[in-house]
């Protein structure tokens, strides 16, 4: 294999003999960075995070240093909260749970450092409700950290106090959207808030400044403190720094989770070299590169991407799907996104109508129902797709689906509107002939009853 994994966050995941208890963590140098970080001071940590160019791993890829800079702990008079988003529910994504289940103290150390850096005295770890075991693991780990003096009053005699509470999610995908999460944490329905005015950095949890970061993002903070922002930024590529956890699922020989420097490998390398190629000797048909809401990319097509040349200027290149670099900027310029790192690979046996109908069923089930276009439009799209899948499609359905999606994306309260529309826009955009064919064959082609008309 030409490309080797670079395990930073996943260093100890699945390592022989490594256990999730604090003794094992301490034996491996655990909580040493706490001492270093406390000695550096909060402002210095924030500076290093900025230098590291770390981008959020929750989906949007927003620069963490910038996010933190919206809050100045020296000026804010209200309490500042930090929330670790461990709701991981984007289909195709299964990285955060590895950390929670197998190396919880790494997350806790990253959280404590991030809290310290931002003057946070009370933090929450919002964990997906279905992770029952993970919840117990976190509670136990927090207890261990507490009894070792890493949490609570006067941590390591630094005078700094911090408490972290675990909060179990409410069993809905939308609880992962940061403002929905905040509402849920406050004990309400996870209805995302309008932004403006309710930017978490200004009016977050209990209307106080709040930082919401993904599990993986917070773990990276520990490594940034360890190696310094500049050294961290050398991993990966400019503006796409550090490592990235990739969760590969679908029609590959070796699905699983991997960690690579951001952009160090291409889609083709990931699928063929790392994951052993398409299973059963099949052919690559399409990839969803960043969780189910990312736009699907079709094999055999070329993508115009803009990349920084050696002279620093942007140059446009045409590349094949397999040659797309697995980083934020490349996938964005190819019209999709790196998202949550969930890479879903589809081979030539996959029926795109079924795939999209399946994805749409998920979104129709998960729309929180707060705002009109998403609430009504997403179920409508699902119903049309189910009808096509069941052999009752009409010629105009693909156009109508696209028009419905176009009237949702960009017009809703939260990014769920896009998350639900992008698959429809891209599947129909890239595989229109498959939808048309299915509709032309209709009746007789109503093969599998995989999607029901109602839910």
């Amino acid at each position, binding site marked *: 294999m030409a490309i080797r994994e670079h395990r930073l966050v996943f260093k100890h995941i699945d390592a022989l003999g490594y256990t999730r208890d604090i003794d094992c963590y301490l034996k491996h140098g655990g909580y040493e960075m706490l001492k270093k970080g406390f000695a550096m001071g909060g402002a210095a940590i924030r500076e290093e995070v900025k230098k590291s160019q770390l981008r959020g791993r929750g989906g949007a890829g927003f620069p963490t240093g910038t996010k933190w800079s919206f809050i100045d702990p020296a000026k804010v008079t209200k309490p500042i909260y930090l929330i670790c988003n461990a709701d991981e529910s984007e289909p195709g994504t299964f990285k955060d749970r590895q950390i929670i289940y197998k190396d919880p103290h790494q997350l806790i150390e990253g959280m404590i450092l991030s809290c310290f850096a931002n003057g946070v005295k009370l933090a929450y770890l919002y964990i997906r409700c279905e992770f029952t075991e993970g919840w117990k693991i976190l509670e136990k780990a927090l207890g261990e950290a507490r009894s070792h003096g890493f949490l609570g009053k006067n941590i390591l005699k630094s005078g700094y106090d911090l408490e972290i509470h675990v909060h179990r999610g409410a069993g809905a995908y939308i609880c992962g959207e940061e403002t929905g999460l905040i509402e849920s944490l406050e004990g309400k329905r996870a209805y995302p808030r309008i932004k403006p005015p309710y930017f978490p950095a200004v009016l977050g949890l209990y209307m106080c400044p709040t930082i919401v970061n993904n599990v993986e993002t917070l773990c990276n903070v520990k490594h940034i403190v360890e190696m310094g922002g500049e050294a961290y930024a050398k991993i990966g590529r400019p503006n796409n720094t550090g490592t990235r956890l990739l969760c590969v699922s679908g029609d590959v020989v070796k699905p699983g989770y991997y960690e690579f420097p951001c952009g160090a490998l291409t889609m083709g390398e990931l699928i063929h070299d790392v994951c052993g190629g398409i299973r059963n000797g099949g052919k690559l048909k399409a990839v969803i590169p960043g969780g189910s809401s990312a736009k699907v990319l079709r094999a055999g097509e070329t993508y115009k991407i803009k990349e920084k040349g050696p002279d620093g200027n942007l140059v446009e290149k045409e590349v094949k799907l397999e040659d797309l670099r697995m980083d934020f900027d490349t996938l964005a310029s190819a019209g999709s996104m790196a998202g949550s790192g969930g890479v879903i690979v589809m081979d030539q046996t996959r029926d795109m109508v079924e795939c999209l109908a399946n994805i749409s069923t998920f979104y129709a*089930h*998960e*729309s929180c129902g707060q705002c*009109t*276009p998403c609430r009504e439009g997403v179920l409508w799209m699902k119903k049309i797709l189910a009808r096509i899948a069941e052999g009752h499609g009409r010629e105009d359905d693909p156009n109508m689906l696209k028009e419905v999606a176009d*009237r949702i994306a960009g017009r809703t309260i939260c990014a769920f509107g896009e998350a639900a529309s992008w698959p429809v826009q891209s599947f129909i955009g890239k595989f229109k002939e498959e939808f048309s064919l299915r509709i032309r064959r209709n009746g007789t082609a109503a093969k599998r009853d995989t999607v029901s008309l109602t839910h």
Partner: protein
Amino acid sequence: MNPWNHDVAKDEKDLVDVQIDGVWMQMPRGLNVVEVAHRAKKFLPHYCYHPKLSVVGNCRMCLFEMGTPKMGPDRKPVLGADGKPEIAWMPRPQIGCATGITPGMGIRTDSALVKDCRNGVMEFLLINHPLDCPICDQAGECKLQEFSVEYGTGASRFTENKVKKPKNVDLGERIVLDDERCILCSRCVRFSSEITQDNVLGFVNRGSHSTLTAYPGKSFDNDYSLNTVDICPVGALTSKDFRFQMRVWFLKETKSLCTSCGTGCNTMIGSREGKVYRLTPRENESVNSHWMCDHGRLNFHYLESKERLTRPLLKAAGEQFPGTWVDAIARAAEGLQKVKPAEIAIVASGRLTNEELFVLKRLAGELGVSQVDTVPHLGQGDKFLRSADGNPNGRGAELLGLSSGGRVLSGWAAAILSGKIKALLVLGGENLISAGIPASTLAKLEVLIYSGILSNETSRLAQVVLPGSGFAEKTGSMVNVHGRLQRMTRAISAPGEAREDWMILRDLRMALTGGNSLHSVEDIWKSMATEVPQFQGLNWAKIGDLGIQIESSAKADEAKLA
């Protein structure tokens, strides 16, 4: 009263330049785009936004195209040929309800994108809507109907099965919910939690299946619940009292006041062919904002009570018989003339208008009657609108010098027994028995004249009964407990031969003293404005639809305590 007042600018004089549909104008800084568009005589349609509720931005009907001043390399706005900033338009539409204006902002309320946004929202709102307008009470004042005509396409492309939801849900004592009609704007939810602090409504289920409901084991019946029927943009919430009674487009609307307590909430009477069908609050920020209590709202059915007096009654041989107005007025005058003025007491009423009370004052003055008072009606107030003072015009009666708030009246039972009071003129339908004068005492009177709209224990003892008018049947003014003078206008005429009270008093006065200078409300005002210090300089027109503060609220309170 309201935690939010989005329609009120922080500072009306702090203006910023904004461009609305190509025209630059000045508007107060920070005001939201829905309000700014409204002031610019443009309309941004909206469902969930209400100026007095928190902004949630869920309907997405108010999407507009927004721009900000284009910045040059020097970080200064680039100016166009007209010297105004050039605008960089954002590709994403924004919601007007949650966007405050800033200097140089560009607003498009009518572009192709905006039209497509509205059209989309309308299509989405209608796909799962039952479209049962023919049997819906909201028809005629439904924003869904209205906006779909204005901004929709007419035809629906939706051919799938609609989502089924509960219909005919009993939310509480007074409200029925049709969940299929609900557009989930959450106005009702926000009203109940933010305005009345009564958290009983919420949504269950997700997506298209989202359903409004009352919390398990709770029912929605606080005393302000019916306001949600007003603010519900569709026919999801209906008033049990009003539903199926009358199509709203047949209703005549008349500006009036609620007379069920001393607050005097401003109302609109909805009537048709001499019958009142509903009362709704009429916006007045100095009194009741957009709201009124359920008690006051529903307190009009007595106008059609079986006890309603529709003809003058005269007592003969111990029994009351219908008679003519001429005979009744003559009998009343005759009775009052039989005794000395010092032996007459008058029960004026805090339910009468200032105009009626003024004619009464003239009458008392000319007759030389000095014993006049009103019956206090102490009820249950609350922290919101409802006043504990059940008299709608107790303050007016005080200002006219016709009331001591019941202190004088409290001595009358003894005075009747001792023979000091021989005649009693009772107005405003007051029941003296519940006011503390037993029937046996009243029986000692030589003369008892009663005017009111309903018969009661007191009326049944009277020698003459003069049928008067209810609040919807009269025009006049009242002063509320906070010292605000307000007008009410007649919506319907009194039933049968019942008459407006000021006319009854005018005729009685003519018969008794020959005084006949007051022929109309305007006439009354001419005199009243010179005689009552607080009314000085005022006339009917000046009071206006929203009333006038004639004394400070504190002063009115003080007077009440004294």
